[in-house]
C-alpha cells in the first residue's frame, strides 16, 4: 500500500473557482448576452416520411427485416441488428400494452403546466419479437383515459391500449395525428 496513506492530495482541498449569485453575474462588467437566431428544417427521411403519411391515413406502418423478421415501429430503412435493407412495409393494428407511464407537471423549459399530462411508452403488437423480450416495436406518446392513480399504483403498466386518432381533416402527417393512446374498453 502507498506510503502516502490517508494524506489528502495537496492543492485540491481548496478547489479553484469563483461562484456567482444570479444578480452578481448580471452585474459583471464585460458580460456578453447573445440570443441565437438559428432556425432548422429537419428532414423526416425516407422511412419516417412514409410512416407519417400513414398516420395521416390513420394507419400505423412498420418495416420488416427480411433476415431476422423484426417489424420496426417507428420504421427504419435498415435493420439495426442485421444491417440489411428493410424492404417490406407492414400495417399494424395499432394496439399494444403500456410499458411505462409517468405524470408530468412540467413543460420543455421546466415551466409548471396548468394540467399534468400522462405520457408513456407503448409496446405495440408486432410480429418478429420474443414475448417478454428485451426489444419490441413501440412508440412514445401521450396516454388518455389513464388516471394518475393508475400510474402511481402500477395498474397502468400492462394495460391494453389503442390509438385515439384525430379527425381525418385535422391530420397533418405528424406524430400528433394520434391524439393519444387510450385503454381498450372491456
Amino acid at each position, binding site marked *: 500500500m502507498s506510503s502516502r496513506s490517508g494524506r489528502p492530495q495537496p492543492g485540491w482541498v481548496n478547489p479553484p473557482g469563483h461562484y456567482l449569485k444570479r444578480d452578481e453575474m448580471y452585474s459583471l462588467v464585460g458580460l456578453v448576452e447573445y440570443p*441565437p437566431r438559428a432556425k432548422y428544417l429537419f428532414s423526416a427521411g425516407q422511412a419516417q416520411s412514409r410512416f407519417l403519411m400513414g398516420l395521416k391515413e390513420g394507419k400505423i406502418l412498420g418495416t420488416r427485416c427480411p433476415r431476422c423478421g423484426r417489424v420496426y415501429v417507428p420504421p427504419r430503412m435498415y435493420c439495426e441488428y442485421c444491417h440489411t435493407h428493410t424492404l417490406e412495409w407492414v400495417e399494424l393494428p395499432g394496439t399494444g400494452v403500456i410499458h411505462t407511464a409517468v405524470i408530468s407537471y412540467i413543460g420543455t423549459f421546466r415551466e409548471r403546466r396548468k394540467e399534468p399530462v400522462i405520457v408513456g411508452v407503448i409496446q405495440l403488437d408486432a410480429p418478429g419479437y420474443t414475448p417478454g423480450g428485451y426489444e419490441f416495436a413501440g412508440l412514445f406518446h401521450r396516454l388518455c383515459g389513464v388516471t394518475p392513480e393508475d400510474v402511481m399504483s402500477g395498474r397502468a403498466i400492462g394495460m391494453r391500449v389503442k390509438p385515439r386518432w384525430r379527425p381525418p381533416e385535422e391530420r397533418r402527417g405528424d406524430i400528433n395525428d394520434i391524439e393519444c393512446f387510450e385503454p381498450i374498453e372491456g
Partner: protein
Amino acid sequence: MVWKAWRIGDVIHYPGSEEVEKYVYTPGIHGIEFAKALKEGRILGMKCPGGVHVPPKTYCPDGSPGELVEVKGPWRIATFTVVYEDIYGNPLPEPQVLALIRPDDARRGGLIHIVKADPDAVYIGMEVKPHWRPPEQRTGHITDIEYFEPA
C-alpha cells in the same frame, strides 16, 4: 413497395428553432480586468515568457502565471479583408474593412476589429489607432472601441 419509389419530393420536413432564448457568457477572471480597462480607455495584455498576449489569457502557454500590462501600440494591420455583406447575406451600405490588428509591443495575439478607411488605401503593415466611444457610452465590451482608424 420498394425504397426506390421514394423520392426527395416525398420526404417530409419539419421546422425547428434553437430552444435557447439567449446565452450569457461570463468574461472570465482576466477578461473582467480587460473589460474594466476598456471602460477606462485602456487595452490590457498578459506578459508571458516569450511575449505579451492581447487580449490577456489567464494562463501562459507554458503554464506559468502571467502579469497584466497595458498595451500602448503602435497598432499595425497584420491582415485584413473587405466585407460586402452582413451575416445574413444582405449587402452592406458600404464595404467595410475588417482587420487583425497587432500592437508593436505585443506580438502574441491581437484584436479583430473594424478599420474605418478606404478599402483601396488599406495595406498590411499600415499603422492604425483605436477610436474610442465617449466614456459615458462605454460598457466594458470590445465595441467600446468604435473602430480603428489610420494613425
